[in-house]
């Protein structure tokens, strides 16, 4: 199987995307053949099968010689495989949660599963694309499917509202991104990431490249819900069905962060003095706005929306470190955040139900008395979100802030860690509520028993969060080899005596 890079067939490079596309088409066609009244659960299982096969294909891609396909538009390397596995994992768990949460609702579930699968195709493509136009195509595929999924509960008021808001602001953001791509082309004459990097220093219009970079960062900032582009997040998360929120708060963000890493560290590495300032400000704002906003929320989903803004901020701290450790820390953080956030939305969607019966923090009061296992999982995810050691959340923050402090970024690290102290308050409110005595006629008494699909989903997410907190070495190693492909000529490891931050190697 060890073909030299130039003999690897191009379709090997996008095998997981091909598999997912085929399964998406199968689901759509099968949906038409099932009588309207019958259950669509089997389609969910087809989607699960497709995701498993795509995961296997991604692992298989590791054995390929790293390289590009389709005339240099897609690339498989340790970095893309890392995010492929992450996205497939998220989609898999989200499908299991959907199978649990949507038992009663049979409306158009065929389309639902097809959209999840097609959205995954877009996200996977984003992480392996090394051509900005293809990145844009991936971004559109994933965005459009999430717009529709956000509005999937057509009969409620909030869900269509969420979808419209998400669609308007999201397409605005994509337009920014596309404009940035166009300006990049104007400045350098290419949209290929590797070529941009080599042509950028020779561009005759440096100011144009700065604007292009700014546009691209704004566009992606919307997608990862970093402040000041975060306003859509709480409304959309509140309105969208919970299993969908678990998916869309993690997978598209992971893909967008992967793109942002590739674009900043690879294409625009020579402009790092500019984008680090931008990202520094975005990180500080996101952490502060996210956490302060979350303090006042009564709705669990809105609180988690603000928390996801804050977590995007922590993640951006790692970008400013300008080192391989920073890239590895950012990649690791996406994994640990995905594990705990998908997990907590699995619990929230089971407790709240598909139709959001229980939405407020005080509605969760006394859950520990009705469903001890579910509450235990919820408590564990909350502890991980707070960042208590022996959970994935701790090592996510640990690596991010170690990288930042090692690069001499002291103030942002202090802002971040003080923020994580504040954040403890709103997570604790939920934690304390679930373990408090239930009130009379509490809604939590109607929470159904755990189905085995949900049990598998919880086992996967709790297990992942625990493993990341006790033995993070393996995942960190993968993140580091991914980082090496982005920043191969990393500076020699700065010794204990070096006082200057390790500079980004710019030797193209």
């Amino acid at each position, binding site marked *: 199987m060890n073909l030299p890079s130039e003999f690897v067939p191009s379709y090997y490079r996008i095998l997981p995307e091909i598999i997912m596309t085929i399964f998406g088409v199968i689901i759509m066609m099968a949906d038409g053949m099932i009588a309207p009244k019958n259950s669509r659960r089997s389609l969910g299982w087809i989607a699960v099968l497709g995701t498993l096969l795509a995961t296997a294909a991604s692992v298989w891609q590791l054995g390929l010689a790293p390289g590009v396909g389709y005339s240099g538009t897609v690339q498989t390397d340790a970095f893309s495989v890392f995010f492929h596995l992450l996205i497939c994992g998220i989609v898999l768990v989200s499908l299991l949660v959907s199978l649990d949460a949507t038992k009663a609702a049979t409306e158009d579930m065929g389309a639902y599963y097809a959209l999840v699968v097609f959205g995954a195709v877009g996200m996977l493509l984003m992480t392996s694309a090394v051509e900005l136009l293809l990145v844009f195509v991936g971004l559109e595929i994933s965005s459009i499917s999430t717009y529709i999924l956000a509005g999937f509960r057509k009969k409620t008021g909030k869900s269509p509202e969420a979808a419209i808001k998400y669609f308007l602001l999201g397409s605005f953001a994509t337009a920014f991104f596309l404009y940035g791509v166009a300006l990049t082309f104007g400045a350098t004459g290419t949209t290929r990431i590797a070529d941009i990097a080599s042509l950028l220093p020779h561009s005759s219009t440096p100011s144009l490249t700065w604007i292009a970079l700014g546009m691209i960062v704004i566009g992606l900032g919307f997608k990862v819900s970093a402040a000041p582009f975060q306003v859509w997040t709480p409304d959309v998360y509140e309105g969208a069905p919970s299993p969908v929120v678990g998916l869309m708060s993690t997978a598209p963000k992971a893909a967008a962060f992967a793109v942002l890493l590739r674009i900043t560290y690879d294409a625009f590495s020579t402009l790092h003095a500019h984008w680090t300032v931008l990202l520094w400000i975005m990180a500080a704002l996101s952490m502060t706005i996210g956490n302060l906003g979350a303090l006042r929320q009564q709705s669990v989903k809105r609180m988690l929306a603000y928390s996801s803004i804050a977590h995007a901020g922590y993640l951006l701290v790692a970008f400013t470190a300008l080192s391989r450790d920073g890239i590895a820390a950012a990649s690791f953080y996406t994994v640990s955040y995905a594990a705990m956030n998908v997990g907590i939305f699995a619990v929230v969607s089971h407790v709240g139900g598909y139709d959001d019966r229980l939405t407020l923090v005080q509605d969760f009061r006394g859950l*520990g*008395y009705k469903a*001890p296992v579910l509450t235990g999982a919820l*408590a564990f995810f909350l*502890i991980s979100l*707070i960042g*208590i*050691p*022996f959970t994935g959340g*701790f090592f996510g923050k*640990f690596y991010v*802030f*170690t990288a930042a*402090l*090692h690069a001499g970024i*002291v103030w942002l*690290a*202090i802002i971040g*860690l*003080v923020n*994580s*102290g*504040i954040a*403890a*308050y709103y997570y*604790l*409110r939920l*934690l*304390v*509520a679930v*373990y*408090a005595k239930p009130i009379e006629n509490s809604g939590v008494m109607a929470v159904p028993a755990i189905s085995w699909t949900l049990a598998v989903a919880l086992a996967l997410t709790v297990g992942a969060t625990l493993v990341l907190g006790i*033995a*993070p*070495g393996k995942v*960190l*190693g993968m993140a*580091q080899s991914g980082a090496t492909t982005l920043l191969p000529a990393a500076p020699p490891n700065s*010794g*204990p005596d070096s006082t200057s931050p390790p500079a980004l190697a710019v030797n193209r």
Partner: protein
Amino acid sequence: VLDDLILTLIVLVPLAGAIIVGFLPRKGKLIQGFTLAVTLFSFLCTLHLPAHFHYGHTGFQFEQDAIWIANPEIHYHVGVDGISMWLIVLTGLLAPLGVLASWNAIETRTKEFYFFFLLQQVAMYGVFISLDLILYYGFWELSLVPMAILIAMHGRSQGGRAAIKFFIYTFVPSALFLVAILALYARTQTFDFVLVQQKLGSQPGLFGPQALWFISLAFLFAFAVKVPVFPLHGWLGDVFSEAPTAMAMVVSGKLGIYSILRFHLALFPAQARQIAPLMIALAAIGIVYGALVALVQKDLKRLLAFATLSSLSFCTLGIYTFAASGLSGALFHILSESITGAAMFILLGLMYERYSSYDIHQYGGLASRMPRMTVLFLVTTLSLIGLPILTGFVGEFLTLSSGFQVNHLYGTIATTGVILSASYMLWMVQRVFYGANSPMVERTTVPDLFLREKLTLWPVAVLMLVMGVSSTLWFRAIDEGIAPLATQPAATTAHLEAR
């Protein structure tokens, strides 16, 4: 072989116990019995340490060092010296007492209660044995979680509020503490306590004086909140009055005092000496303030909270005198304070089980109804106010005498605390146990101590006496442990003189 693995065993026994509790059926007293067995066994394990401790051997013993995470290098490095050894045994001793005190008091959610109770044990043992800063930080933070959840679950009425208050009070300083640890790592390239200590001692140029000053402050702040040192005691009253007995017993004091000794004094000797005058002043104020506030409390548990603040301030006073007698006195005082305080909590808990009240005014003439309990309560009270031949006296005497040598003014102020503690405790005893029977005591007929309660309390009472008369048994290890802290390193002296 056992010597190498004993510390790991001490941590693993309650952890395994907690996991098994998670799978036990909620039936009868099965979970209680099992947890009691686990805590007794782990207490036995901790007794291995004093039995096999090598006196006259500097450095850490029972050490184990393995790489936990390769990059950045974090070790599973554990070890014990004279500072931590008796604290580990103390933790082991208090665990079965906590189970016995909760036996009937905790009726609902027993599985959760004992699961988190054992997890709390794991965290406390972990704090005392960890010699890697990140490992230590892990256990330090972990100790917050079971405490907060149990306060929320089994609080009296405002449990949720108290839990959040406790958590935020200790978690926010811990965030700065983590920044400080990472900043240390950025220059020393290690998290290992022993190596960090060596590097800080041998390479004074590693950090600028200002940077090291802020790092040492971040350490001290996190620890001082946990002790708590006046004026950082805001959480103490609420937590004491809300927390279930078994948790209130262990929430304050020893983790913070130990961490100050182990990390603040040992890693930053020069900075600790610089801030010592402030800490001594705060300790003296804390002693008097705590006592005065305790004097006017109407709630028994709040009274105990401020008594504890006052009592713990003796430890702070002793530590920052940097005299050998003050340091070992402080360490001994935290042992006796924990035992006496635990006994007091158990006694208050069993009064609450009988009368459902902590209100001093509702009690009166209790001695006529519960004579046996009154005896135990008096013994504990006398130990708490520092009567000679009981354990409380030793620590108070040593810390006060060394405090007096360092600063006459603060020494004098602190000594008035002894008189005040006698007044608030004895006045409380007089109001609760003597005088005419109050309507509540008159109305309710209650049994005197049960066998289980006697088994809990009598050993503790005997221990208070033994620790009071033959304290040298404990000081053998303690003196060795604190000796390096009392002697000022040569490099530090030169450094200070240069300033």
